[in-house]
């Protein structure tokens, strides 16, 4: 009569660092899922794709709410940014418009629009303490924003292309008949 003896299975020797790596992987995975912002993702998706004719950079996406992406995580952080057009009812952007910003501390900062009509401010240059007053000017024409900006540095969050009960329409310089020199190619 024979008997079969079975040796108890030896425990596989697993290095301790392996389980630590697994734990870290799971933790990072969960943390990564927890850090997504569906509202921001939705807002970015709503902006649509890049125009194939315009490379990523200072000239892209005129008229869109810049800070939706430019938050320091999705793209380079900006504190204030927007697009300025010649007239309320026209899509022609204007360059060289001076944008005057004055915050609650009385700190003033001036920047200017580029050929897409875009302007943007980096946090190292100016981070406003709200409320912030805004005025724009070029060639003797000037517009002052009636109400202050209280929390949102993206002009286009409130200034969408079409006026409505929720939007004053585009940010524009000229409200009288006038012609500005065209300084862009």
């Amino acid at each position, binding site marked *: 009569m024979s008997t079969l003896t079975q040796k108890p299975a030896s425990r596989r020797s697993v290095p301790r660092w392996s389980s630590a790596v697994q734990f870290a992987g799971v933790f990072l995975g969960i943390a990564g899922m927890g850090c997504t912002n569906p509202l921001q993702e939705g807002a970015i998706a709503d902006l649509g794709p890049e125009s194939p004719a315009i490379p990523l950079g200072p000239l892209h996406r005129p008229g869109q709410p810049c800070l939706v992406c430019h938050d320091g995580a999705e793209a380079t952080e900006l504190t204030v940014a927007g697009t300025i057009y010649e007239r309320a009812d026209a899509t022609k952007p204007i360059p060289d418009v001076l944008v005057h910003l004055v915050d609650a501390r009385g700190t003033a900062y001036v920047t200017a629009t580029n050929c897409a009509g875009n302007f943007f401010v980096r946090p190292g240059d100016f981070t406003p303490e709200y409320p912030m007053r805004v005025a724009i000017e070029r060639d003797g024409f000037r517009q002052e924003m009636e*109400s202050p900006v*209280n929390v949102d540095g993206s002009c286009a969050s409130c200034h969408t292309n079409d006026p409505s*009960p929720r939007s004053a329409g585009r940010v524009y310089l000229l409200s009288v008949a006038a012609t500005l020199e065209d300084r862009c190619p």
Partner: protein
Amino acid sequence: MRRMLLRSLFPLVLPALAVACAPEAEPTDVLLVPSRITYPSVGGALEYRCATLDCHGKPERNLRLYGSSGMRLAAEDVPGDGETTDAEHDASYRSVIGLEPEVLSLVCAEGGNEPERLSLIRKARGEEAHKGGARIVRGDDADRCLISWLAAATDEAACARAAEDQSE
């Protein structure tokens, strides 16, 4: 033995439960609110401080405020055009009084005493987490305007100064 004990306690338990669940007093069905008539003065003081399109001039807010420079009520009106309409004052007033109606009623019933019981005041003063930070300072014209309104003694002069001050 245990069964006997339960049987003897049973008649006592039911009335005790009934008492514990009964309301202490009948709730009143009348909630006090501050004046609608003087609200436009208060709304004027709040307009640039609170009702801009990037703050409470957004329909997503639970305190939704309308005004000529912010969100408009009528489909044909746009921000920055014309005056705040009576319907807009009415809508903003309803937002304000609808925020914490029971607490508001208590504050009104006590002549505006301890208005900081209201989130409206705590947030406006920056004493509670508020994305817009402190928009009024305890004792300034806008604060006096709001507090006096809650006390049914609207300080029209303070409201007017507060509305003018924010236009600068």
